[in-house]
């Protein structure tokens, strides 16, 4: 039995705003602008929104603050904070709520001004009592521990991590909205400053501002709107731990399980997917998620990304907006892979457009490989 309303809801509006630097705006301003743009894109208005799915970078009751800012009174306010994967879980929950008739129009939004406000990653997270005395530089050190273990177990190299960074940059160079668009060579990568071994500055996502929003409704209603509906075919999540030490095997994430459930719900396999968006907070993420989402066997991801296979012109287009590594990373990045998947499936991705893209996966990661959530989308004709 398929417990998911496969294809019965759709993303009908999508927008990004202020990726990179957006001086003078507060986080909620940025999210509100992206929301207005996404509603305009859909041909809907704020008055239509009765489900709000939102988290604010620093305000833990941001869902209420944002509804107030927008002047709406949602029937459902989901303020879930599983980190950067929250947005994929919003899509999953919105699909159920829309299909059940509990709401008619879901707005999923995020915005952050962290780069212009502070110049560093903004976080409300408190250090864990049994980690703090050892001063891990989180989140980098936690991902570094995963990368070190992966390299130990599978003989992966720094050059293979570098291949992920180079591919992301090549895609970013095709995306006018991307923040980092200057050419990047393997020599640049290998010479970059080490932060927490084996991860250097160029293994780490950017620190930028930025906002994104998507609008979801039921597929029957979506047919009457401005844009071709992008169908939500499957979505699933799994949380595994909070601190990295409680991930049983640091080379296997819960994406293996969220992904498997999302494929099952969508009735698809990895071979059906034309374009892949994964939350690349660090280079190791892309390798782990390509494995866990079934694009290559466990332990082969590092070899898989070599020779430009995930770069423009490669066999598998991955993170076609440039990803968190080169496009933008405003604290929580999970909504941006969803917007990029929508753009690819609409065929509006310009120079980076993947030909004949019918199915896309947009995978979110939260915490330190802690919370995994997968969304599978289909073009209107699917």
């Amino acid at each position, binding site marked *: 039995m398929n417990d998911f309303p496969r294809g019965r809801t759709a993303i009908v509006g999508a927008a990004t705003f202020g990726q990179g630097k957006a001086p003078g705006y507060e986080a909620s301003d940025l999210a509100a602008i992206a929301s207005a743009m996404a509603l305009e894109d859909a041909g809907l208005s704020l008055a239509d929104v009765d489900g709000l799915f939102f988290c604010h970078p620093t305000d833990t009751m941001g869902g209420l603050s944002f509804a107030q800012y927008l002047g709406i009174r949602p029937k459902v306010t989901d303020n879930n904070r599983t980190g950067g994967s929250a947005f994929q879980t919003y899509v999953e929950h919105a699909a159920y709520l829309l299909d059940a008739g509990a709401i008619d129009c879901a707005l999923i939004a995020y915005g952050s001004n962290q780069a212009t406000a502070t110049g560093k990653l903004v976080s409300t997270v408190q250090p864990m*009592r*049994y*980690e703090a*005395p*050892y*001063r*891990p*530089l989180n989140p980098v*050190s936690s991902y*570094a*521990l*995963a990368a*070190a*273990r992966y390299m*130990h177990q599978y003989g992966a190299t720094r050059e293979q991590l570098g291949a992920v960074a180079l591919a992301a940059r090549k895609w970013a160079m095709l995306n006018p909205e991307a923040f980092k668009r200057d050419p990047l060579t393997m020599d640049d990568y290998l010479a970059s*400053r*080490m*932060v*927490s*071994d*084996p*991860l250097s500055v160029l293994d780490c996502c950017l620190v930028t501002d930025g906002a994104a929003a998507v609008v979801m409704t039921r597929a029957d209603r979506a047919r009457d709107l401005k844009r071709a509906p992008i169908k939500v075919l499957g979505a699933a999540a799994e949380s595994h731990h909070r*601190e*990295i*030490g*409680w991930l049983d095997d*640091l080379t296997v994430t819960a994406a293996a399980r969220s992904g498997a459930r999302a494929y099952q719900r969508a009735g698809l396999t990895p071979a059906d997917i034309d374009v892949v968006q994964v939350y690349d907070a660090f280079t190791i993420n892309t390798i782990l998620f390509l494995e866990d989402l079934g694009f290559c066997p466990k332990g082969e991801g590092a070899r898989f990304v070599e020779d430009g296979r995930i770069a423009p012109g490669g066999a598998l287009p991955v993170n076609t907006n440039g990803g968190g590594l080169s496009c933008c990373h405003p604290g929580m990045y999970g909504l941006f892979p969803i917007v990029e998947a929508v753009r690819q499936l609409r065929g509006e991705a310009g120079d980076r457009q993947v030909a004949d893209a019918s199915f896309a996966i947009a995978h979110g990661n939260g915490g330190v490989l802690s919370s995994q959530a997968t969304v599978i989308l289909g073009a209107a004709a699917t």
Partner: protein
Amino acid sequence: MDVTHPDAEFRAFLVAGRFMIQRSKSSRVHVFYPRAVAPGTGARDLEWVEASGRGVVYSTTVVRKKPPEPSYNVALIDLAEGPRMMSRVEGVEPAAVAIGMAVQARIVDQHGEPVVVFDAVEPAA
């Protein structure tokens, strides 16, 4: 020994020079960090037991600092009893800490707080 205040009792043991972890009486599974309820089962039967202090490095990183501030090691240690904990390996260069290295716990004073760290163990001849 019943557990009533997990964190405070753990710290009191450390101050007394003892590295104690927990074990569930029903499942016999060892637990770290200190809790009031056993993870997975929900059993309220955790008791304190002395950790052997033996462990193996599961993963390791070096947090790089700008000189003169020294770079330092952060490691995940798999304890012989089963649980894993974050710590650091002392007595060797941070970058010389290796996955698979056998280590032994030691309690040090860090700014007035007792903290469990590890030393590399020479492999038996």
